[in-house]
């Protein structure tokens, strides 16, 4: 008897026999991963400089750019509210900047609906630079030039880490639509 190719009945999201997507996972994963990204920086102890890139913000931008149409335009409000609880900036900072970010990406998408990765990266770098700059300006302390200079390593890390973040988002997106065994 000839062997049937085991991958014949499967695609990128797993086998199709007696399996289906989980609506819970499909809906929760983007939001949960961004919230996890918001919490992650508090685990590092950085007493001297802001060293850790704003992971929650990068996850938001990553999900928005890698998977357009998934997060609603207003997603910046609840996610920003959550980020504000942990980010150390004055309350309201993330709600404002994350909402503006979502609107800005929407405007970019109207202009360039089909993008290649370097364009996504460029957009994310620009937004990350603006975000960190706004964080310096609206930190609640008088903005000094020394604090601005101290921002540079974090900015470089933020720009360099975006490709990794978008790969993680792509992998999470694959997992989000995975078919699970039906009972």
């Amino acid at each position, binding site marked *: 008897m000839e062997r049937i190719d085991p991958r014949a009945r499967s695609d990128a999201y797993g086998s199709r026999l007696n399996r289906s997507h989980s609506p819970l996972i499909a809906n929760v994963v983007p939001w949960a991963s961004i919230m996890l990204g918001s919490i992650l920086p508090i685990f590092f102890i950085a007493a001297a400089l802001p060293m850790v890139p704003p992971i929650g913000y990068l996850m938001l931008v990553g999900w928005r750019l890698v998977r357009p149409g998934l997060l609603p335009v207003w997603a910046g409000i609840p996610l920003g509210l959550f980020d504000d609880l942990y980010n150390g900036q004055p309350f309201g900072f993330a709600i404002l900047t994350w909402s503006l970010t979502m609107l800005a990406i929407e405007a970019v998408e109207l202009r360039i609906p089909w993008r290649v990765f370097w364009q996504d990266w460029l957009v994310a770098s620009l937004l990350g630079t603006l975000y960190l700059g706004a964080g310096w300006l609206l930190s*609640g302390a008088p903005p000094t030039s020394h604090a601005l200079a101290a921002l540079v390593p974090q900015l470089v890390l933020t720009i360099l880490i975006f490709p990794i973040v978008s790969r993680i988002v792509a992998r999470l997106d694959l997992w989000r639509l995975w078919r699970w065994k039906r009972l």
Partner: protein
Amino acid sequence: MAPSSQRRSSYSKRAQYNLFTGYIVAGIGALIGAVLLVLSFFQPQFFGGPRSVAQDAATPATETVAAARTGSKSLWDSISGYYRAGSKNAELKREVELARIRLGEAEALRQENVRLRGLLDLQDEDRKPVAVARLVGSSSSSTRRFAYLGAGSEDGVTVGMPVRSARGVVGRILETGRTSSRVLLLTDSESVLPVRRAGDETVAFAEGRGDSLLRIKLINLGINPLKVGDMFVTSGAGGYYPPGIAVAIVTELNDDGGLARIVSDPAATDYVSVEQIFEPDAAVGATTPIEEELGD
């Protein structure tokens, strides 16, 4: 990836309205954010409640990670300790011998101190720390320098209490939750600490610059008496910190003082202790405007 076709809303009125409402809601969200931001500029403590609840909720995870972090660090220390163990051992022996002599001298000084204090009728009660806890995290992606402490109001921690490690001052309590609290580190650009040079009475303010250095601003201007390597300790002025705790070492000189590096790096400390406010009356007096009178 290309945008999904649902954003080109075509002729469906419902889809068009949905898209439009999304824009409106996002715009309103940005406005609300701006209002909250302005509010928290003028009332920084206003949102402390939800923030400390959120921090309390994260404490089990942050505590675990902090324990693992300090554990792995001491493992690394013990591994790197083997490197050049022999020469280090000899050097340490010499140092211990010297330290023993100094210890004897210090003991003599202590006794003389006790005698003189007795003559002056000064009370010197032992200060016990309010709580001893780990620094469990920090606002590592923000321009501000806050740390989170694994002890809160349940342990008796209140706002304003000084936090110190075995090496020196770390910062002071800014907000308290039930099981965690937020510490304003010395390196934050809002932090100002009255200090004096160890060994004489050169008083100054140590201000955080936001880039890991402290700016030492001398109060008496004139010829700059500082030298690179000078140690600054708390002066006790202001009433928050007890005098004589190590703060920073001068690394660079400028016109009205110098730049200094903190002695107690919070990232390198294991446990820190929260202490009572040194002179609560003085601390209250320092925050009361001149126009108001202090009650009896």
